[in-house]
């Protein structure tokens, strides 16, 4: 990535203008191009499947997915699976959010506690959480508890790490102001450290949501084959690629919805930054 400031010279010795930056496009253009991108790929996929370039059994097709989704919905399988996954995700994420924010505040605020526990947070955060699955099954069994533990374990670390960073980086001058106005430790946390850490908390929650989704899929693959994850897993084993694709698409849509919902929450609680 080395760009020189001087534009290359043509044989005539004149400077030729060159774009060093990406061309700016309007939001509308971006939406249109994005839509074309998505539907272009789907169309290509459908055509490849229709003309027999792609094996229908292995590669499925968008139309086949729509048909499968319709029949799964009609039979009630999809609804029940989505409900089960939704409950697992919501429970696990809620526990992870509460734990993550509380632990994050403690680690961000109390330097000695942080120094004591930081290595463990790093070790656990760095270890692929899926490595703990057999242990969790040994300890928590093969029921919903084990599934929830897996979701929590996946989601909690990014929340801890981000909240701790946010609280730790509290503006020193704001701390002086709060102290001079007789704020006690708890009041300083509530009125200065937490509001100041909101962008970090939102980032942690955003990563936590995505990791909780991963945790949900992992839990459903390895424990009980319930929910949408179980549907995908079973479909894969039986070469039912259309159902597997439908399940994957549902997770993708869930992720997009959750992400934009969080964006809306963010602009509400953090509106002063705009």
């Amino acid at each position, binding site marked *: 990535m080395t760009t020189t400031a001087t534009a290359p010279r043509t044989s005539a010795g004149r400077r030729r203008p060159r774009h060093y930056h990406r061309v700016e496009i309007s939001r509308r253009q971006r939406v249109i191009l994005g839509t074309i991108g998505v539907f272009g790929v789907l169309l290509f996929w459908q055509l490849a499947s229709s003309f027999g370039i792609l094996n229908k059994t292995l590669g499925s097709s968008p139309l086949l997915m729509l048909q499968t989704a319709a029949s799964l919905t009609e039979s009630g399988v999809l609804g029940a699976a989505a409900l089960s996954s939704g409950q697992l995700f919501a429970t696990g994420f809620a526990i992870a959010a509460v734990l993550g924010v509380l632990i994050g505040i403690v680690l961000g605020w109390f330097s000695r506690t942080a120094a004591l526990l930081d290595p463990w947070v790093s070790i656990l955060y760095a270890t692929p959480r899926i490595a703990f699955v057999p242990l969790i099954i040994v300890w928590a069994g093969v029921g919903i508890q084990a599934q929830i533990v897996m979701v929590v374990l996946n989601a909690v670390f990014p929340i801890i790490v981000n909240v701790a960073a946010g609280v730790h980086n509290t503006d020193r*001058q*704001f701390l*002086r*102001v*709060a*102290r*001079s*106005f*007789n*704020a006690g430790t708890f*009041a300083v946390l509530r*009125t*200065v450290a937490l*509001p*100041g850490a*909101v962008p970090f908390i939102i980032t942690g929650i955003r990563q936590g949501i995505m990791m909780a989704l991963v945790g949900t899929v992992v839990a459903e693959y390895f424990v009980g084959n319930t929910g949408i994850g179980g549907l995908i897993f079973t479909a894969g084993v039986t070469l039912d690629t259309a159902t597997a694709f439908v399940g994957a698409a549902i997770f993708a849509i869930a992720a997009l919805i959750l992400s934009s919902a969080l964006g809306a929450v963010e602009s509400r609680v*953090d509106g*002063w*930054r705009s």
Partner: protein
Amino acid sequence: MTDTTRITEATMPGSSTPEPLVTISGLSKSYPSPRGSAAGPVRVLEDIALDIAPGEFITVIGPSGCGKTTLLDCIAGLATYDSGSIRIAGAQVQGPGPDRAVVFQQASLFPWRTIERNVGYGAEMLGWDKSRIAERVRSAIDVVGLSGYEKHHPHQLSGGMQQRANLARALVMDAPVVLMDEPFGALDAMTKKTMQDELLSVSARIGSTVVFITHDIDEAVYLADRVVLLRPRPGRVDSIYDVPFARPRQRDVVDSAEFRALTSTLAHRLHEVGSSAES
């Protein structure tokens, strides 16, 4: 060492020398020596003594490194000191308290709070009930001329307006002592003059005792009943000047020969203590 120049005796109508509200005596503070340096601890304040009468307006001036801000932090209870004492109405200062309010050099308003919730912060921390806070906030905002901006966030206000909010935040609690750390230092000349005049009228109205740090000699003289000049390394009281001009003070006092004489005396002395510390 303390060379106290009293030009006139502070006179309070109807009373002889009143009981001081703030009593500072023998105040000393040093910071541990910098890591790896052979020198001993750095003395920042040495044997500071100062009595401040109720309702008095004191300005503190001195070259950089004279410990002005450290002195203010000690009075505010934001910094500890090694020896000596600071008493307010007879009570020893131990940390921040509701009897003192600080106006900071930077406006330091919480960006996530509206102006009215920033102004009410101190009262909120003291646990006042909501209606009392609302009433006091309204009057403080009115006093500093920010009415209509209650629901704005700090970033929507100019630097001068943010400083008004900073001032209002300190006024809300009716603290008997207001400590101000170069609050107008970052303002442009015009805004600064306006703020000085407003501060004079506000402080006259509420009768607070003010300790005001500045490095602007004209400002120090224009605002003060007494100007305290500190000398640096270590920070000590060099001299104290009584300011003889009547209150309410008119802006044109700055053009008087007396004002010029006093500011040039101060400028001269400031230069002396600054350069003697360099050698």
